[in-house]
């Protein structure tokens, strides 16, 4: 049953995130919520280099973007977290089973006879994982900044006040879960200390290795929780922006 649940879980996320990206090609901006002085940016659309929200860094539309193609801010950024997850060691094992039945489960036969593994093209390209990791770490910093911004609300006096709302908590939990997933990465574990045979000679590396190993033990759990929560964060901001959900303010100084 596990490959079936993995198949349904991944499929649901891929369908939803693709739909969310294309939703932003036209019409009102629902990936940013600015009501009641808040500043929530959906993680699917952050950083927003070009786009229609107040957080867009360089304007509405990239000048080099072909006019006949629809544009969404997610198109410029989403490939990075997508690539990071696609090449992740946990996800690889999971989707090889769930989508390609390679194998569907342990000791269960396979539907095909030929097998190349990750030794030849195209799957040899999975070795690019550590480069997606470098970019994903930058993303964590940006999403951390988004979470920090969600704690500041523009009051009636036009000044920003520190506060906390349910949306802030959603964005904070999002960056914590994504951080737990990213900083428990197998490649990171190798790069910070796993490459050394004698870690006792490099105590900083040993400490980093132990910390990453600690997160790495539950890498699958972090992967699923962060996947679900990043989707939920987009849903939350979208529904708040559409005035379907009300963002409850817990306190403001």
């Amino acid at each position: 049953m596990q490959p079936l649940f993995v198949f349904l879980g991944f499929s649901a996320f891929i369908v939803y995130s693709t739909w969310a990206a294309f939703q932003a090609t036209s019409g009102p901006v629902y990936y940013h919520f600015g009501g009641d002085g808040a500043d929530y940016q959906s993680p699917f659309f952050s950083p927003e280099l070009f786009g229609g929200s107040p957080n867009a860094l360089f304007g509405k539309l990239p000048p080099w973007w072909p006019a006949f193609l629809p544009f969404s801010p997610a198109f410029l950024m989403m490939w990075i977290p997508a690539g990071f997850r696609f090449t992740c060691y946990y996800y690889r094992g999971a989707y090889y089973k769930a989508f390609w039945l390679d194998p569907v489960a342990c000791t269960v036969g396979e539907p095909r006879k030929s097998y190349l593994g990750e030794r030849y093209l195209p799957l040899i390209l999975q070795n690019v994982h550590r480069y997606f990791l470098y970019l994903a770490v930058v993303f964590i910093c940006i999403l951390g900044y988004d979470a920090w911004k969600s704690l500041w609300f523009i009051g009636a006096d036009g000044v920003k006040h520190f506060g906390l709302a349910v949306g802030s908590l959603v964005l904070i939990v999002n960056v914590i879960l994504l951080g737990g997933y990213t900083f428990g990465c197998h490649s990171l574990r190798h790069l910070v200390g796993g490459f050394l045979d004698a870690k006792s000679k490099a105590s900083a590396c040993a400490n980093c290795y132990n910390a990453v190993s600690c997160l790495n033990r539950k890498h699958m759990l972090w992967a699923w929780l962060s996947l679900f929560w990043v989707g939920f964060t987009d849903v939350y901001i979208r529904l708040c922006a559409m005035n379907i959900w009300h963002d409850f303010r817990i306190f403001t100084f």
Partner: protein
Amino acid sequence: MSTVTFKIWRSGEDGKDGKLVEYQTEASEGMVVLDVVHKIQATQANDLACRWNCKAGKCGSCSAEINGKPSLMCMTRLDMIPIDKPVTIEPMRAFPPLRDLVTDVSWNFRVKKKIKQFKPRPPDAPDGTWRMQQEDIDRVQEFRKCIECFLCQDVCHVLRDHNKHDEFIGPRYLVYTAALEMHPLDTEDRIPELKKAQGIGYCNITKCCTTVCPEHITITDNAIIPLKERVVDEFYDPLGWLWKIIRPKG
């Protein structure tokens, strides 16, 4: 006491063309599958062949497939499996059958001989001994728990379903290589062989080997993936090559 039905693989002439033969026997509290096999051997099928030795989960001899799952017969208690239905006991399917539950696992020993042996650095002390820290050896000690039961080799679909025995050494020998390669005293380089002759790229991280390991060695996460990363260091990472040029000792 309850009567339990077992379906045990019995080979035909010259070890081939076998079939599952049904036996019924009384099961009592605390029995393991190996006890059942011995009981059937003693009372109903004197010519039933099975390999066993320690009956304590340490020799790795009694590997078989119990209800389709690669397991040690001596470590599978009857209260761990459903006995209200017939219990199937079959030999490991990744290796050539010899007779009944016994398979020819000699391929594994031939593979082991091809892996470069331990090559320590010169001794640290005049008396010919070495010094190393426990924290440096912790990682390798996990791999030394292996009892060579070959259940991980049996469950690996690269060997089991795709018969890549000539191109892939299997999880057991990736663990063995990791134990040598990550040893703080070792100076040998096994990475080029791992990529080419030993086919580490065939592993697609299904973690089946980790699931069946009776010693609970975290084969995939602690041995195979770190070795894959070392292969990436050497063959697929241009930034890493640059780093090595800048800091050759790093």
